Protein backbone atom coordinates (compact mmCIF):
# COMPACT_ATOMS: atom_id res chain seq x y z
CA UNK A 1 0.00 0.00 0.00
CA UNK A 2 1.40 3.30 -1.09
CA UNK A 3 1.75 5.97 1.60
CA UNK A 4 0.17 9.29 0.76
CA UNK A 5 0.98 12.59 2.37
CA UNK A 6 -2.63 13.68 2.14
CA UNK A 7 -5.51 11.30 2.84
CA UNK A 8 -9.20 12.04 3.00
CA UNK A 9 -12.22 9.79 3.14
CA UNK A 10 -15.56 10.05 1.34
CA UNK A 11 -17.18 10.60 4.73
CA UNK A 12 -14.88 13.54 5.52
CA UNK A 13 -15.55 15.15 2.17
CA UNK A 14 -19.30 14.64 2.52
CA UNK A 15 -19.19 16.18 5.99
CA UNK A 16 -17.50 19.25 4.47
CA UNK A 17 -20.19 19.37 1.76
CA UNK A 18 -22.84 19.20 4.47
CA UNK A 19 -21.22 22.14 6.26
CA UNK A 20 -20.87 24.06 3.00
CA UNK A 21 -17.09 24.04 3.39
CA UNK A 22 -16.07 21.70 0.58
CA UNK A 23 -13.72 23.24 -1.98
CA UNK A 24 -14.82 22.24 -5.46
CA UNK A 25 -13.20 23.08 -8.81
CA UNK A 26 -13.80 21.89 -12.34
CA UNK A 27 -11.25 19.68 -14.10
CA UNK A 28 -10.26 22.71 -16.20
CA UNK A 29 -9.63 24.81 -13.09
CA UNK A 30 -7.71 21.96 -11.45
CA UNK A 31 -5.03 22.20 -14.16
CA UNK A 32 -4.08 25.65 -12.90
CA UNK A 33 -4.39 24.74 -9.21
CA UNK A 34 -1.89 21.88 -9.54
CA UNK A 35 0.40 23.92 -11.76
CA UNK A 36 0.51 26.67 -9.17
CA UNK A 37 0.62 24.70 -5.91
CA UNK A 38 1.85 21.24 -6.86
CA UNK A 39 -0.24 18.11 -6.46
CA UNK A 40 0.31 17.58 -2.72
CA UNK A 41 -0.74 21.08 -1.79
CA UNK A 42 -3.59 20.90 -4.30
CA UNK A 43 -4.81 17.71 -2.60
CA UNK A 44 -4.91 19.59 0.71
CA UNK A 45 -6.81 22.54 -0.78
CA UNK A 46 -9.26 20.82 -3.08
CA UNK A 47 -11.89 18.30 -2.03
CA UNK A 48 -13.72 17.55 -5.27
CA UNK A 49 -13.00 18.00 -8.98
CA UNK A 50 -15.99 17.99 -11.31
CA UNK A 51 -15.87 16.69 -14.89
CA UNK A 52 -18.31 16.78 -17.78
CA UNK A 53 -19.01 15.42 -21.22
CA UNK A 54 -21.77 16.03 -23.76
CA UNK A 55 -21.68 13.89 -26.86
CA UNK A 56 -23.81 11.64 -29.05
CA UNK A 57 -23.72 8.39 -27.09
CA UNK A 58 -25.12 5.35 -28.80
CA UNK A 59 -25.83 2.42 -26.51
CA UNK A 60 -28.31 4.52 -24.58
CA UNK A 61 -32.01 4.08 -23.98
CA UNK A 62 -34.79 4.05 -21.43
CA UNK A 63 -36.93 1.47 -19.68
CA UNK A 64 -40.52 2.65 -19.59
CA UNK A 65 -43.54 1.23 -17.82
CA UNK A 66 -46.76 2.71 -19.12
CA UNK A 67 -49.05 1.18 -16.52
CA UNK A 68 -51.71 -1.53 -16.84
CA UNK A 69 -54.58 -0.96 -19.22
CA UNK A 70 -58.22 -1.99 -18.88
CA UNK A 71 -58.73 -4.60 -20.17
CA UNK A 72 -55.19 -5.76 -19.52
CA UNK A 73 -52.69 -6.09 -22.35
CA UNK A 74 -49.42 -7.95 -22.61
CA UNK A 75 -47.67 -5.63 -25.02
CA UNK A 76 -45.30 -7.64 -27.14
CA UNK A 77 -44.85 -4.86 -29.66
CA UNK A 78 -44.64 -1.21 -28.65
CA UNK A 79 -44.18 2.00 -30.63
CA UNK A 80 -43.62 5.57 -29.42
CA UNK A 81 -44.21 8.13 -32.15
CA UNK A 82 -43.79 5.22 -34.60
CA UNK A 83 -40.39 4.31 -33.19
CA UNK A 84 -40.39 0.71 -32.08
CA UNK A 85 -39.47 -0.06 -28.50
CA UNK A 86 -38.55 -3.56 -27.37
CA UNK A 87 -41.57 -5.11 -25.65
CA UNK A 88 -40.29 -8.54 -24.76
CA UNK A 89 -39.73 -7.68 -21.12
CA UNK A 90 -43.09 -7.85 -19.36
CA UNK A 91 -46.70 -6.86 -19.90
CA UNK A 92 -46.32 -3.08 -19.97
CA UNK A 93 -42.55 -2.61 -19.77
CA UNK A 94 -40.50 -1.70 -22.79
CA UNK A 95 -37.05 -0.43 -23.68
CA UNK A 96 -36.66 2.38 -26.18
CA UNK A 97 -33.18 2.43 -27.68
CA UNK A 98 -31.75 5.67 -29.03
CA UNK A 99 -30.58 4.30 -32.40
CA UNK A 100 -33.98 2.87 -33.39
CA UNK A 101 -35.27 4.76 -36.45
CA UNK A 102 -38.93 5.68 -36.93
CA UNK A 103 -40.89 3.13 -38.96
CA UNK A 104 -41.41 4.21 -42.55
CA UNK A 105 -38.20 6.23 -42.63
CA UNK A 106 -36.59 5.84 -46.07
CA UNK A 107 -33.30 5.02 -44.29
CA UNK A 108 -30.45 5.08 -46.78
CA UNK A 109 -32.61 4.26 -49.83
CA UNK A 110 -32.36 7.97 -50.60
CA UNK A 111 -28.64 8.27 -49.92
CA UNK A 112 -27.49 9.81 -47.68
CA UNK A 113 -30.55 9.34 -45.46
CA UNK A 114 -31.62 12.21 -43.22
CA UNK A 115 -32.83 10.11 -40.27
CA UNK A 116 -34.90 12.92 -38.86
CA UNK A 117 -36.55 11.02 -36.01
CA UNK A 118 -35.76 8.05 -33.84
CA UNK A 119 -35.39 6.71 -30.31
CA UNK A 120 -33.08 9.53 -29.24
CA UNK A 121 -35.71 12.06 -30.28
CA UNK A 122 -38.45 10.14 -28.43
CA UNK A 123 -36.41 10.42 -25.23
CA UNK A 124 -35.81 14.14 -25.83
CA UNK A 125 -39.57 14.62 -26.44
CA UNK A 126 -40.40 12.69 -23.27
CA UNK A 127 -38.15 14.78 -21.02
CA UNK A 128 -39.42 17.94 -22.73
CA UNK A 129 -42.94 16.93 -21.66
CA UNK A 130 -44.15 16.68 -25.25
CA UNK A 131 -47.08 14.47 -26.24
CA UNK A 132 -46.07 11.06 -27.59
CA UNK A 133 -48.30 8.62 -29.47
CA UNK A 134 -48.08 5.28 -27.68
CA UNK A 135 -49.15 2.17 -29.62
CA UNK A 136 -48.98 -1.36 -28.28
CA UNK A 137 -50.01 -4.76 -29.58
CA UNK A 138 -50.39 -8.10 -27.82
CA UNK A 139 -51.51 -11.54 -28.93
CA UNK A 140 -54.07 -11.99 -26.17
CA UNK A 141 -53.94 -14.37 -23.22
CA UNK A 142 -56.43 -15.40 -20.58
CA UNK A 143 -54.93 -12.94 -18.12
CA UNK A 144 -54.10 -10.24 -20.71
CA UNK A 145 -56.96 -10.36 -23.22
CA UNK A 146 -56.47 -7.01 -25.01
CA UNK A 147 -54.85 -7.05 -28.44
CA UNK A 148 -54.32 -3.36 -29.04
CA UNK A 149 -53.85 -0.15 -27.14
CA UNK A 150 -53.32 3.38 -28.39
CA UNK A 151 -53.05 6.60 -26.43
CA UNK A 152 -51.42 10.02 -26.43
CA UNK A 153 -49.17 10.23 -23.41
CA UNK A 154 -46.56 12.45 -21.81
CA UNK A 155 -43.82 11.40 -19.43
CA UNK A 156 -46.20 12.15 -16.52
CA UNK A 157 -48.49 9.35 -17.66
CA UNK A 158 -45.69 6.81 -17.43
CA UNK A 159 -45.60 4.86 -14.20
CA UNK A 160 -41.83 4.58 -14.36
CA UNK A 161 -39.20 5.90 -16.72
CA UNK A 162 -35.54 5.17 -16.19
CA UNK A 163 -32.68 6.04 -18.43
CA UNK A 164 -30.35 3.08 -18.61
CA UNK A 165 -27.38 3.40 -20.93
CA UNK A 166 -25.24 0.29 -21.26
CA UNK A 167 -22.19 2.09 -22.67
CA UNK A 168 -21.47 5.78 -22.11
CA UNK A 169 -18.66 8.22 -21.41
CA UNK A 170 -16.03 6.35 -23.43
CA UNK A 171 -12.57 6.90 -22.01
CA UNK A 172 -10.97 8.23 -25.17
CA UNK A 173 -12.24 7.82 -28.70
CA UNK A 174 -10.57 7.61 -32.08
CA UNK A 175 -10.27 10.48 -34.52
CA UNK A 176 -11.87 9.68 -37.89
CA UNK A 177 -10.69 10.57 -41.41
CA UNK A 178 -11.64 9.43 -44.89
CA UNK A 179 -8.79 8.49 -47.24
CA UNK A 180 -11.04 7.51 -50.16
CA UNK A 181 -12.10 9.71 -53.09
CA UNK A 182 -15.75 10.08 -52.10
CA UNK A 183 -17.61 11.61 -49.17
CA UNK A 184 -18.65 9.07 -46.54
CA UNK A 185 -21.38 9.33 -43.92
CA UNK A 186 -20.49 7.71 -40.60
CA UNK A 187 -21.37 7.72 -36.92
CA UNK A 188 -18.39 10.05 -36.64
CA UNK A 189 -20.21 12.53 -38.88
CA UNK A 190 -19.68 13.44 -42.52
CA UNK A 191 -16.12 12.76 -43.64
CA UNK A 192 -15.04 14.46 -46.82
CA UNK A 193 -12.70 12.71 -49.27
CA UNK A 194 -8.90 12.75 -49.26
CA UNK A 195 -8.76 13.61 -45.55
CA UNK A 196 -10.48 16.98 -45.97
CA UNK A 197 -11.64 16.83 -42.35
CA UNK A 198 -10.90 14.88 -39.18
CA UNK A 199 -13.76 14.38 -36.70
CA UNK A 200 -13.21 13.62 -33.05
CA UNK A 201 -15.20 13.18 -29.85
CA UNK A 202 -14.76 13.43 -26.06
CA UNK A 203 -14.29 16.60 -24.07
CA UNK A 204 -10.56 15.96 -23.45
CA UNK A 205 -9.32 17.32 -20.14
CA UNK A 206 -12.92 17.75 -18.90
CA UNK A 207 -13.96 14.18 -19.73
CA UNK A 208 -14.76 12.04 -16.64
CA UNK A 209 -12.66 8.92 -17.21
CA UNK A 210 -9.58 10.90 -18.31
CA UNK A 211 -9.51 12.39 -14.83
CA UNK A 212 -9.56 9.02 -13.08
CA UNK A 213 -7.71 6.88 -15.60
CA UNK A 214 -7.47 3.75 -13.39
CA UNK A 215 -11.05 4.04 -12.05
CA UNK A 216 -9.85 4.51 -8.47
CA UNK A 217 -12.94 6.54 -7.48
CA UNK A 218 -15.40 6.01 -10.32
CA UNK A 219 -17.02 2.65 -9.70
CA UNK A 220 -20.33 0.87 -9.32
CA UNK A 221 -22.63 3.09 -7.31
CA UNK A 222 -20.86 6.39 -8.01
CA UNK A 223 -23.44 9.17 -7.98
CA UNK A 224 -23.25 11.32 -11.13
CA UNK A 225 -24.88 14.14 -13.10
CA UNK A 226 -26.95 12.35 -15.73
CA UNK A 227 -29.08 14.17 -18.27
CA UNK A 228 -29.66 17.06 -15.89
CA UNK A 229 -30.66 14.85 -12.96
CA UNK A 230 -28.75 12.71 -10.50
CA UNK A 231 -27.98 9.17 -11.56
CA UNK A 232 -25.51 6.41 -10.83
CA UNK A 233 -22.83 4.31 -12.43
CA UNK A 234 -24.59 0.94 -12.62
CA UNK A 235 -21.80 -1.28 -13.88
CA UNK A 236 -18.82 -1.11 -16.17
CA UNK A 237 -20.05 -0.34 -19.66
CA UNK A 238 -20.18 -2.81 -22.52
CA UNK A 239 -16.88 -3.03 -24.43
CA UNK A 240 -15.08 -1.73 -21.29
CA UNK A 241 -11.43 -2.48 -21.98
CA UNK A 242 -8.88 -1.25 -19.44
CA UNK A 243 -6.04 -3.23 -21.03
CA UNK A 244 -5.01 -0.83 -23.76
CA UNK A 245 -1.73 1.00 -24.26
CA UNK A 246 -1.46 3.92 -21.85
CA UNK A 247 0.84 6.91 -21.57
CA UNK A 248 3.12 7.48 -18.58
CA UNK A 249 0.31 9.51 -17.02
CA UNK A 250 -1.95 6.45 -17.13
CA UNK A 251 -4.15 7.89 -19.88
CA UNK A 252 -5.23 5.31 -22.50
CA UNK A 253 -4.07 6.18 -26.02
CA UNK A 254 -7.23 4.76 -27.59
CA UNK A 255 -10.81 3.82 -26.60
CA UNK A 256 -10.67 2.06 -23.22
CA UNK A 257 -12.98 2.22 -20.21
CA UNK A 258 -16.75 2.74 -20.40
CA UNK A 259 -19.55 2.97 -17.86
CA UNK A 260 -23.17 1.85 -17.76
CA UNK A 261 -25.33 4.55 -16.18
CA UNK A 262 -28.84 4.69 -14.75
CA UNK A 263 -31.13 7.43 -13.51
CA UNK A 264 -34.72 8.62 -13.20
CA UNK A 265 -35.72 9.98 -16.62
CA UNK A 266 -38.50 12.02 -14.99
CA UNK A 267 -35.88 14.20 -13.29
CA UNK A 268 -33.92 14.86 -16.47
CA UNK A 269 -34.12 17.72 -18.94
CA UNK A 270 -34.10 18.25 -22.71
CA UNK A 271 -31.10 20.55 -22.31
CA UNK A 272 -28.96 17.49 -21.50
CA UNK A 273 -30.64 14.76 -23.56
CA UNK A 274 -30.87 15.85 -27.19
CA UNK A 275 -31.83 13.67 -30.16
CA UNK A 276 -29.22 13.52 -32.91
CA UNK A 277 -29.58 12.81 -36.64
CA UNK A 278 -26.35 11.69 -38.23
CA UNK A 279 -26.62 12.14 -41.99
CA UNK A 280 -26.38 8.82 -43.85
CA UNK A 281 -25.88 6.93 -40.61
CA UNK A 282 -28.85 7.08 -38.29
CA UNK A 283 -30.13 8.50 -35.05
CA UNK A 284 -28.59 8.77 -31.62
CA UNK A 285 -28.82 10.80 -28.44
CA UNK A 286 -26.56 13.48 -27.04
CA UNK A 287 -26.12 12.62 -23.37
CA UNK A 288 -24.76 14.96 -20.74
CA UNK A 289 -22.76 13.26 -17.98
CA UNK A 290 -20.75 14.78 -15.16
CA UNK A 291 -18.81 12.86 -12.54
CA UNK A 292 -17.37 14.29 -9.33
CA UNK A 293 -13.93 13.01 -8.39
CA UNK A 294 -13.06 13.08 -4.70
CA UNK A 295 -9.50 14.20 -4.06
CA UNK A 296 -8.73 11.43 -1.57
CA UNK A 297 -4.98 11.90 -1.87
CA UNK A 298 -2.30 13.61 -3.96
CA UNK A 299 -2.50 10.90 -6.63
CA UNK A 300 -6.08 11.94 -7.42
CA UNK A 301 -4.96 15.58 -7.52
CA UNK A 302 -2.32 14.57 -10.05
CA UNK A 303 -4.77 12.58 -12.19
CA UNK A 304 -7.38 15.33 -12.23
CA UNK A 305 -4.84 17.91 -13.40
CA UNK A 306 -4.43 16.21 -16.78
CA UNK A 307 -4.29 18.63 -19.73
CA UNK A 308 -5.45 18.34 -23.33
CA UNK A 309 -1.86 18.19 -24.59
CA UNK A 310 -1.17 15.10 -22.46
CA UNK A 311 -4.13 13.15 -23.84
CA UNK A 312 -3.47 11.29 -27.09
CA UNK A 313 -5.71 9.39 -29.44
CA UNK A 314 -5.30 7.45 -32.69
CA UNK A 315 -6.36 8.56 -36.13
CA UNK A 316 -8.18 5.91 -38.19
CA UNK A 317 -9.42 5.70 -41.76
CA UNK A 318 -13.18 5.20 -41.81
CA UNK A 319 -13.44 4.59 -45.57
CA UNK A 320 -11.62 1.24 -45.80
CA UNK A 321 -9.94 0.25 -42.57
CA UNK A 322 -12.81 0.68 -40.11
CA UNK A 323 -15.64 -0.89 -42.16
CA UNK A 324 -13.69 -3.99 -43.11
CA UNK A 325 -13.32 -4.95 -39.44
CA UNK A 326 -10.45 -6.51 -37.58
CA UNK A 327 -7.47 -4.69 -36.14
CA UNK A 328 -7.22 -1.02 -37.11
CA UNK A 329 -4.07 0.53 -38.47
CA UNK A 330 -3.38 3.91 -36.86
CA UNK A 331 -2.50 6.73 -39.22
CA UNK A 332 -0.84 8.57 -36.38
CA UNK A 333 -1.32 9.89 -32.88
CA UNK A 334 -2.69 13.30 -32.03
CA UNK A 335 -3.37 15.10 -28.78
CA UNK A 336 -6.52 16.98 -27.81
CA UNK A 337 -4.89 20.40 -27.74
CA UNK A 338 -4.07 19.99 -31.42
CA UNK A 339 -7.50 18.53 -32.20
CA UNK A 340 -9.14 21.52 -30.50
CA UNK A 341 -6.89 24.00 -32.33
CA UNK A 342 -8.96 23.37 -35.49
CA UNK A 343 -6.19 21.84 -37.57
CA UNK A 344 -3.93 18.79 -37.32
CA UNK A 345 -1.30 17.24 -39.58
CA UNK A 346 -1.92 13.68 -40.79
CA UNK A 347 0.71 12.01 -42.95
CA UNK A 348 2.15 15.40 -43.82
CA UNK A 349 -1.21 16.89 -44.81
CA UNK A 350 -3.00 19.70 -42.97
CA UNK A 351 -6.48 18.54 -42.00
CA UNK A 352 -9.32 20.64 -40.57
CA UNK A 353 -10.82 19.15 -37.38
CA UNK A 354 -14.44 19.13 -36.23
CA UNK A 355 -15.66 17.97 -32.82
CA UNK A 356 -18.81 15.91 -32.26
CA UNK A 357 -18.78 16.52 -28.51
CA UNK A 358 -19.74 19.92 -27.20
CA UNK A 359 -16.94 21.32 -25.07
CA UNK A 360 -19.22 24.24 -24.22
CA UNK A 361 -21.89 21.95 -22.75
CA UNK A 362 -19.28 19.76 -21.02
CA UNK A 363 -17.95 22.85 -19.29
CA UNK A 364 -21.48 23.84 -18.26
CA UNK A 365 -22.08 20.38 -16.77
CA UNK A 366 -18.86 20.50 -14.73
CA UNK A 367 -19.92 23.96 -13.52
CA UNK A 368 -23.46 22.87 -12.58
CA UNK A 369 -22.15 19.84 -10.69
CA UNK A 370 -19.72 22.10 -8.87
CA UNK A 371 -22.60 24.37 -7.84
CA UNK A 372 -24.73 21.41 -6.70
CA UNK A 373 -21.93 20.18 -4.45
CA UNK A 374 -21.17 23.67 -3.11
CA UNK A 375 -24.85 24.16 -2.27
CA UNK A 376 -25.01 20.77 -0.54
CA UNK A 377 -27.47 19.38 -3.07
CA UNK A 378 -25.16 16.60 -4.19
CA UNK A 379 -23.13 14.20 -2.05
CA UNK A 380 -20.42 11.81 -3.11
CA UNK A 381 -21.01 8.09 -2.93
CA UNK A 382 -18.31 5.54 -2.36
CA UNK A 383 -18.36 2.82 -4.99
CA UNK A 384 -19.70 -0.53 -3.83
CA UNK A 385 -17.34 -2.25 -6.24
CA UNK A 386 -14.58 -1.06 -8.56
CA UNK A 387 -14.71 -1.23 -12.31
CA UNK A 388 -12.38 -3.83 -13.82
CA UNK A 389 -8.99 -2.12 -13.89
CA UNK A 390 -6.88 -4.65 -15.75
CA UNK A 391 -3.21 -4.48 -15.00
CA UNK A 392 -2.87 -1.00 -13.49
Amino acid at each position, binding site marked *: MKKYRVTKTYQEINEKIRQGKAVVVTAEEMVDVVEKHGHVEAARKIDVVTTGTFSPMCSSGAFLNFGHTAPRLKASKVWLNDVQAYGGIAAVDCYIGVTEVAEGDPLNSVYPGEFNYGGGHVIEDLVAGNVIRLRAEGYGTDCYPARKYEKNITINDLRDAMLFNPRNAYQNYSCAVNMSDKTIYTYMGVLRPRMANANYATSGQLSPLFNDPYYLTIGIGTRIFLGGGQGYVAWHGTQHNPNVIRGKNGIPREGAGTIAVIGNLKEMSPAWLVGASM*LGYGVSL*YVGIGIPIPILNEAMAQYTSVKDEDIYTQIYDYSMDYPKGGALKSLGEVNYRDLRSGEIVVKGKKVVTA*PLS*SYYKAREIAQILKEWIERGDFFLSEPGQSLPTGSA
Partner: protein
Amino acid sequence: MYSKKVVIRYTADNVDQPIICQLVKKHDLDFNILKAQILPRREGVIVVELTGSKENFDRGMRFLKEKGLQVEPVSKNVSQNTDKCVHCGACIAFCPTDSLYLDKQSMKVLFDAEKCNGCEFCVMACPVRAMEVNIF
Protein backbone atom coordinates in the same frame (compact mmCIF):
# COMPACT_ATOMS: atom_id res chain seq x y z
CA MET B 1 -14.86 48.31 -53.75
CA TYR B 2 -18.16 47.08 -52.36
CA SER B 3 -19.22 43.45 -52.37
CA LYS B 4 -22.37 41.78 -51.16
CA LYS B 5 -24.11 38.44 -51.48
CA VAL B 6 -27.79 38.76 -52.31
CA VAL B 7 -30.75 36.51 -53.00
CA ILE B 8 -32.77 37.67 -56.02
CA ARG B 9 -36.27 36.27 -56.50
CA TYR B 10 -38.06 36.28 -59.86
CA THR B 11 -41.76 35.90 -60.48
CA ALA B 12 -43.54 34.39 -63.47
CA ASP B 13 -43.67 37.87 -65.09
CA ASN B 14 -39.93 38.47 -65.18
CA VAL B 15 -38.23 35.07 -64.93
CA ASP B 16 -37.71 34.91 -68.72
CA GLN B 17 -35.95 38.27 -68.99
CA PRO B 18 -32.13 38.60 -69.10
CA ILE B 19 -32.16 40.92 -66.09
CA ILE B 20 -28.80 39.93 -64.58
CA CYS B 21 -27.15 40.63 -67.94
CA GLN B 22 -28.72 44.10 -68.09
CA LEU B 23 -27.80 44.73 -64.45
CA VAL B 24 -24.09 44.13 -64.91
CA LYS B 25 -23.89 45.93 -68.26
CA LYS B 26 -25.76 49.05 -67.15
CA HIS B 27 -24.27 49.38 -63.71
CA ASP B 28 -20.77 48.02 -64.19
CA LEU B 29 -20.95 45.31 -61.50
CA ASP B 30 -19.01 42.04 -61.36
CA PHE B 31 -21.10 39.03 -60.51
CA ASN B 32 -20.45 35.55 -59.26
CA ILE B 33 -23.38 33.12 -59.26
CA LEU B 34 -23.32 31.01 -56.12
CA LYS B 35 -26.55 29.18 -56.62
CA ALA B 36 -29.57 29.33 -58.93
CA GLN B 37 -32.87 27.62 -59.55
CA ILE B 38 -34.90 28.81 -62.50
CA LEU B 39 -38.32 27.41 -63.36
CA PRO B 40 -39.26 28.94 -66.74
CA ARG B 41 -42.63 30.73 -66.82
CA ARG B 42 -43.04 30.20 -63.09
CA GLU B 43 -40.34 31.57 -60.79
CA GLY B 44 -36.67 31.67 -60.08
CA VAL B 45 -34.13 32.25 -57.31
CA ILE B 46 -30.56 33.28 -57.83
CA VAL B 47 -27.88 33.76 -55.18
CA VAL B 48 -25.22 36.08 -56.49
CA GLU B 49 -22.24 37.98 -55.17
CA LEU B 50 -22.11 41.48 -56.66
CA THR B 51 -18.97 43.57 -56.61
CA GLY B 52 -18.48 47.17 -57.72
CA SER B 53 -18.60 50.72 -56.37
CA LYS B 54 -21.19 51.31 -53.63
CA GLU B 55 -22.94 53.82 -55.83
CA ASN B 56 -23.25 51.37 -58.72
CA PHE B 57 -24.37 48.65 -56.34
CA ASP B 58 -27.16 50.84 -54.93
CA ARG B 59 -28.28 51.88 -58.40
CA GLY B 60 -28.23 48.20 -59.42
CA MET B 61 -30.46 47.30 -56.48
CA ARG B 62 -32.95 50.01 -57.46
CA PHE B 63 -32.91 48.71 -61.03
CA LEU B 64 -33.74 45.16 -59.84
CA LYS B 65 -36.60 46.42 -57.70
CA GLU B 66 -37.99 48.49 -60.57
CA LYS B 67 -38.01 45.33 -62.66
CA GLY B 68 -40.23 43.77 -60.00
CA LEU B 69 -37.64 41.51 -58.41
CA GLN B 70 -37.32 40.88 -54.70
CA VAL B 71 -33.78 41.34 -53.38
CA GLU B 72 -32.46 40.53 -49.92
CA PRO B 73 -29.06 39.85 -48.42
CA VAL B 74 -28.18 36.15 -48.07
CA SER B 75 -27.74 36.68 -44.34
CA LYS B 76 -31.49 37.24 -43.99
CA ASN B 77 -32.12 33.73 -45.33
CA VAL B 78 -29.70 31.74 -43.21
CA SER B 79 -29.76 31.51 -39.44
CA GLN B 80 -28.45 29.54 -36.51
CA ASN B 81 -31.24 28.46 -34.21
CA THR B 82 -29.49 29.12 -30.91
CA ASP B 83 -32.23 27.35 -28.94
CA LYS B 84 -31.42 24.13 -30.76
CA CYS B 85 -27.65 24.45 -31.22
CA VAL B 86 -25.65 22.35 -28.72
CA HIS B 87 -22.35 23.97 -29.80
CA CYS B 88 -20.68 20.70 -30.72
CA GLY B 89 -18.92 22.07 -33.81
CA ALA B 90 -19.74 19.28 -36.27
CA CYS B 91 -20.63 21.99 -38.82
CA ILE B 92 -17.45 24.01 -38.81
CA ALA B 93 -15.29 21.77 -41.00
CA PHE B 94 -17.92 22.03 -43.72
CA CYS B 95 -18.31 25.77 -43.87
CA PRO B 96 -16.34 27.00 -46.90
CA THR B 97 -16.55 30.66 -45.89
CA ASP B 98 -15.64 30.28 -42.20
CA SER B 99 -18.92 31.92 -41.27
CA LEU B 100 -19.42 29.13 -38.72
CA TYR B 101 -16.61 29.00 -36.22
CA LEU B 102 -15.78 27.92 -32.69
CA ASP B 103 -15.12 30.82 -30.35
CA LYS B 104 -11.94 29.82 -28.51
CA GLN B 105 -12.96 31.57 -25.28
CA SER B 106 -16.55 30.51 -24.80
CA MET B 107 -16.22 27.34 -26.94
CA LYS B 108 -19.56 28.27 -28.50
CA VAL B 109 -20.28 27.84 -32.20
CA LEU B 110 -20.85 31.30 -33.62
CA PHE B 111 -22.34 32.24 -36.99
CA ASP B 112 -21.35 35.30 -38.98
CA ALA B 113 -24.24 35.64 -41.41
CA GLU B 114 -22.46 38.31 -43.46
CA LYS B 115 -19.81 35.82 -44.59
CA CYS B 116 -22.29 33.06 -45.49
CA ASN B 117 -22.83 32.22 -49.15
CA GLY B 118 -25.85 30.00 -48.59
CA CYS B 119 -24.23 26.71 -49.66
CA GLU B 120 -26.24 24.77 -47.04
CA PHE B 121 -23.45 22.26 -46.28
CA CYS B 122 -24.01 22.96 -42.59
CA VAL B 123 -27.71 22.11 -42.68
CA MET B 124 -27.25 18.38 -43.03
CA ALA B 125 -23.93 18.21 -41.15
CA CYS B 126 -25.72 19.46 -38.03
CA PRO B 127 -27.00 16.52 -35.93
CA VAL B 128 -29.67 18.66 -34.24
CA ARG B 129 -30.73 20.59 -37.38
CA ALA B 130 -29.94 23.95 -35.87
CA MET B 131 -28.97 25.65 -39.14
CA GLU B 132 -31.95 27.04 -40.99
CA VAL B 133 -31.71 28.10 -44.62
CA ASN B 134 -34.72 29.40 -46.50
CA ILE B 135 -33.40 30.20 -49.95
CA PHE B 136 -35.35 27.73 -52.11
